[in-house]
């Protein structure tokens, strides 16, 4: 039997705050909850909200669906319904096949037990038969790289070791259906790469997969389709690229281009390409309008490049730094070429009007994003174009070039 994930018009209602408080209300409510059929009214009572509204999707073997959206969009709720932790208020949720969930992979660990004992405990909690755990025990330990600490209680592990052990167990499930929630950032860089490799292997099996992540480049790599969720509703269904574009535009729009009056305003941003290889040049064109007045003189038009995954600014420059002066009254266009000497990922290219006198941002302009792909292999944030040579034998004693 092949796996299948299907949500059919699923609704999920939550409450704000606490439900009931005292025992006087408790016993009748508990009994009612147990015996009565769910109340038929379909609306919201006071203090309730929809975490999901009319969500439908089907994921068949070989497909991988990415769920993206801001916090509170309903991504994790959807996953909890798929896991079987919760049930929908309305609609139908079908998951066929043995579920492998890469979610909170260390949730079952007990601090007082040793690594070895916890492998069995967590493995069983995740639904692995004991025999299977025994069979894969060495592989799991090997993957985690924690062999010397197997007899150490987990409470003495660092949080990185904790996460690595949890991931190693989860990575050896043999799922017919795979659910992944934000487990891509475990351990150090080397382990992350190994983990990502393992996840890619799992996803490429002929099984249905649902991925929730804020690491957008992971969604692009892993998923065949994506849904952009917003406040429990589907904002967009499409390719990962389309959804990420819409999401990032939404994110930047949410911060708002600032409605205040400004002598200089940026009207548009245009990127030469949607994706570039690491190290290639990317054309950026900003169009705007200035009133040419004296106030415009102390303003600068800036371009900022941020790593979407972390929000970290990797590069920022502006007309002042570039030694450019804005022209007199009227429209203008600022053309830049940026050499994308950065690691692969998705980068936001934002524009802003900067007040040089007061040293603050006056206005936030439109933004766009670009995906940086592969390029020559390196790790870290920035390509430093290493020039290297390898010496051998006695010639090693010497100097740094």
């Amino acid at each position, binding site marked *: 039997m092949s796996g299948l994930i299907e949500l*059919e*018009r*699923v*609704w999920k209602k*939550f*409450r704000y705050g606490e*439900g*009931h*408080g*005292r*025992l006087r209300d*408790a016993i009748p*409510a*508990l009994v009612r*909850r*147990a*015996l009565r*059929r*769910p*109340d*038929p*009214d*379909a*609306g*919201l*009572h*006071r203090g309730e909200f*929809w975490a999901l*509204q*009319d969500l439908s999707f089907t994921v068949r073997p070989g497909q991988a669906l990415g769920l993206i959206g801001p916090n509170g969009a309903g991504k994790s709720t959807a996953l*909890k319904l798929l*896991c*079987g*932790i*919760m*049930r*929908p*208020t*309305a*609609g*139908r949720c079908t998951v066929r096949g043995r579920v492998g*969930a890469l*979610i*909170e992979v260390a*949730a*079952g660990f*007990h601090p*007082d*037990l040793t690594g070895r*004992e916890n492998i*069995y*405990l967590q493995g*069983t*909690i*995740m*639904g692995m*038969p*004991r025999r299977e755990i025994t069979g894969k025990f060495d592989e799991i330990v090997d993957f985690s790289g924690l062999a010397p600490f197997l007899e150490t209680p987990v409470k003495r592990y660092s949080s990185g070791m904790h996460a690595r052990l949890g991931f190693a167990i989860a990575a050896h499930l043999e799922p017919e259906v795979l659910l992944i929630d934000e487990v891509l950032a475990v351990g150090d860089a080397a382990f992350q790469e190994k983990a990502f490799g393992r996840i890619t292997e799992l996803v490429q099996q002929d099984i249905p997969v649902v991925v929730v992540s804020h690491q957008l480049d992971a969604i692009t790599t892993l998923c065949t389709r994506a849904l952009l969720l917003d406040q429990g*509703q*589907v904002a967009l269904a499409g390719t990962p690229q389309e959804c990420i574009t819409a999401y990032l535009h939404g994110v930047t729009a949410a911060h708002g281009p600032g409605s205040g009056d400004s002598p200089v305003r940026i009207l548009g941003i245009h990127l030469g390409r949607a994706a570039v290889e690491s190290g290639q040049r990317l054309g950026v064109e900003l169009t705007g309008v200035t009133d040419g007045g004296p106030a415009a003189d102390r303003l600068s038009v800036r371009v900022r490049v941020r790593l979407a995954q972390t929000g970290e600014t990797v590069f920022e420059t502006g007309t002042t730094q570039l030694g450019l002066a804005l022209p007199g009254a009227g429209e203008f266009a600022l053309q830049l070429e940026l050499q994308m000497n950065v690691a692969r990922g998705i980068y936001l290219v934002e524009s802003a009007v900067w007040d040089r006198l007061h040293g603050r941002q006056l206005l936030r302009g439109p933004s766009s994003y670009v995906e940086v792909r592969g390029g020559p292999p390196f790790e870290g944030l920035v390509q430093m174009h290493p020039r290297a040579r390898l010496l051998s034998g006695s010639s090693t004693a010497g100097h740094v070039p």
Partner: protein
Amino acid sequence: MTPTALDVPESRSPTTGAPMAPRPARPPALQDLWASMRDLAGHHELLVELTKRDLRIRYTQAAMGVLWAVLTPLVVALSGWMIRFGMSYLAGAPIRAPELAGIAIKAVAWSFFTGAISFGTLSLTANLPLVTKVYFPRAILPLSAVTTQMVDTAIGAAALLVVLPLAHIGVHRTLLWVPLLLALLVLFTSGLTLIAAAGNVFYRDAKHVIQLVTSFGIFFTPVFFDAGAFGPRGTRFLLLNPLGPVFEGLRLAIVDGHPLLVPIVNAEGTVLWSAAYLGYAALWAVGLAFFGALLFRRVEFSFAEYV
């Protein structure tokens, strides 16, 4: 005040405007129970693993380790003996060794009951990350508290086995009743534990109620004394406590070698024991186990939202 259906506008799909999808129908009770049992059977290895976990935790970092399993019932038994000494002094009647043995047996059974429900009640709230993040039948958690306590109590009972011959308690054919009585005790305890654990997720009052039961319930249950010690009314009262007949039955079967189908009537005509009481206790145990399992099944999917 609960709003009625009329106060609340019906929800419509934000995208298509269609009315809300039908709510999932609740399966009939027996079907629900059956599904629950199958789910549990599929996860028996998890029950074993969690039991092992709890036993390890209970004993590995305790200086006295496994001795605690013996010490707890021993202290209960000692308290019972103290009370019995007082009672016999007042009554001017001598104490017989079988009486003390009876108290010891019931003390072990009582420690099982209190240990299981107090650990079980907290089992869901204590394993919060599991309950909110990982799927498995939640009943495994309170049930593993019961099985853990079963192992724990078995150690205490083994110690008892060594001592009983010293009180000249021999082997009777009526010992065959013991497995049935223990099964009733486990069923009753499991049912109560499931209800208390589920209740504690929604209302922390459950924890306090259970604390009262475990600290003072012993005075309303024939543990320190025999049911007959309180006159006709008191006897009936103690035996109407569903645990009463189980405890008395254990004493009669192990210490007195009394066949449980035969009633006991004292000189004043008070019925100290009858098979009907046993039936009554069995009804309670089975009923509570069923009710507890059903109630638990019906609320377990909202645990993750409420804890």
